[in-house]
């Protein structure tokens, strides 16, 4: 009876037709917020909303992780003229779910001379860092968990914390391979973070804001990669290279080079703890790809060309979420393409590339972009 009253009182009608929600999620989120406010106190509303967002992001995280592992194997197979997984389910799409269950059933091997506390903590630090970054990403219009006014800086800051987990994992395993892998990974991430930050700053200068929703909105009449002339394009290429390095992916995968270091920092991990590292790596790739899509390729904004009203209107019919996913997976495909076509770099080549080439180019690039914005030469 009480429940009945609560439900009757709390459910108000959605302010727009349900199919319009796909184009603008803010009506749906407002409706959920209002219904919860009617049903319970503000305190519990906040708790409930946090729970809903947490569960949704967790689900999204798991699904994207599983799909990316499948996609990587398929893309790899495509590059090497093979078929890839094709036994479990149609086209093998359930292969990664089967792999997940296998990993869940595996024994968690305790390491005798390891530092147990840090050994168990490390995978969680890696996964929490990527989890925090995903909160600030705008998936579609009105579909963003937190819209900070320093969104870009927040994402850089939070994703930088993942390296701590990697370093801890390498040291606490008490294994030379792990330690060398962790050291390499640390040197690599710390140096390439610089390029990632500077490449993003180039676009922040163009957009005049670090808020991700504002950056997306500013690309209504053209994506930044087209609006910012050559500096924006250069920044996009530098971002692609340095973010591939930052996620420890090939050709920059010396931290887990299996031919030299068995598996680098996660050599000693087994079962679901290993799966955490594996998952976090793929989610990190997803995060940098979606930052690239948001900052350079317009995020969820459809492909608009200046004043072509008719063309822009047709493009608006495709829901923003589809645009976002499409662009993100385009960037992910490029990164997978890198991995399966380029040979692995040596550590000195890796550091030379960053400190002698990318960093100077980047600094000059920022200056050129500032000059262009100052003169008003951008579109």
């Amino acid at each position, binding site marked *: 009876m009480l429940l009945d009253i609560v439900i009757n009182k709390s459910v108000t009608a959605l302010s727009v037709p349900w199919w319009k929600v796909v184009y603008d999620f803010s009506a749906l989120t407002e409706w959920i917020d209002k219904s919860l406010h009617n049903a319970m106190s503000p*305190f519990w509303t*906040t*708790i409930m909303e946090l729970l809903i967002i947490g569960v949704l992001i967790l689900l999204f995280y798991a699904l994207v992780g599983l799909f990316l592992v499948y996609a990587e194997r398929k893309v790899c197979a495509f590059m090497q003229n093979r078929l890839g997984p094709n036994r479990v389910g149609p086209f093998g799409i359930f292969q990664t779910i089967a792999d997940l269950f296998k990993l869940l059933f595996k024994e968690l091997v305790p390491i005798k*001379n*390891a*530092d147990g*506390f*840090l050994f168990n*903590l490390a995978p969680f630090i890696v996964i929490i860092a990527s989890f925090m970054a995903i909160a600030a990403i705008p998936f579609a219009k009105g579909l963003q968990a937190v819209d*900070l*006014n*320093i969104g870009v*800086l*927040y994402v*850089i*800051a*939070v994703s*930088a*914390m993942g*390296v*701590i987990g990697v*370093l*801890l994992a*390498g*040291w*606490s395993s*008490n294994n030379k391979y792990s*330690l060398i892998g*962790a*050291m390499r990974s*640390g040197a690599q991430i*710390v140096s390439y*973070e610089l390029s990632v930050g500077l490449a993003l700053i180039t676009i*922040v200068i163009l957009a*005049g*804001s*670090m808020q991700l929703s504002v950056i997306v909105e500013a690309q209504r009449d053209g994506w930044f990669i087209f609006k910012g002339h050559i500096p924006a394009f250069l920044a996009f290429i530098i971002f692609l290279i340095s973010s591939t390095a930052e996620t420890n992916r090939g050709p920059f995968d010396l931290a887990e080079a299996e031919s030299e270091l068995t598996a680098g920092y996660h050599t000693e991990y087994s079962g679901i703890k290993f799966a955490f590292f594996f998952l976090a790596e793929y989610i990190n790739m997803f995060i940098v790809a979606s930052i690239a899509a948001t900052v350079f390729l317009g995020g969820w904004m459809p492909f608009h060309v200046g004043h072509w009203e008719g063309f822009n209107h047709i493009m608006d019919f495709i829901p923003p979420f589809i645009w976002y996913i499409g662009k993100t997976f385009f960037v992910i495909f490029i990164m997978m393409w890198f991995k399966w076509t380029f040979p692995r770099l040596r550590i000195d080549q890796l550091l030379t590339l960053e400190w002698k080439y990318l960093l100077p180019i980047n600094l000059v690039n920022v200056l050129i972009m500032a000059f262009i914005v100052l003169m008003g030469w951008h579109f």
Partner: protein
Amino acid sequence: MAANQIMFVLFSAMIVIFSILTVTSRRILRAAVYLLFVLVSTSGLYFMLNYQFLAAVQLSLYAGGIVVLIIFSILLTSHISQKFESSGLKKNIFSAIAALAGATLSIITILDYNFSATTEAAKEVTMKLIGSSLLSVNYDGYVLPFEVISILLLAAMIAAIVVAKKGAPKPTELPNINQE
């Protein structure tokens, strides 16, 4: 208790507990990790105050920068089996006195300060506001500290290059590997 207060209690409890653990832990890398937790909780407090810029800077500089440097140097220098023996009684007493004196000083300063309560909404600190006040020469501008820190950083960087730079090896001492 409001949600804000609960979060404040949570963060401050984490800061206090992990601060104590940082200085009492006998394993150096664990101490570094506890320090990381302290710094992350502090950035949580900044987020609560709606000062997002400072929170993100705290995360990227302290948690992502300083702690990574500390961990890096520990990785290079110490072994996992290494444990520090506890310090002597005399040292403990003197450090306790020093800590207590510091705590009293800060508490007296905080209690002395006249905090004025306000019902105004928290001011949103945008990127433009931070940038213009950093480079402003007016009353509440920060251009002097900004310039001083820039010069300090430049000096530190040049010093680092000078220290790291190796002199060119003498040509006669180079072993010729191609020689049979």
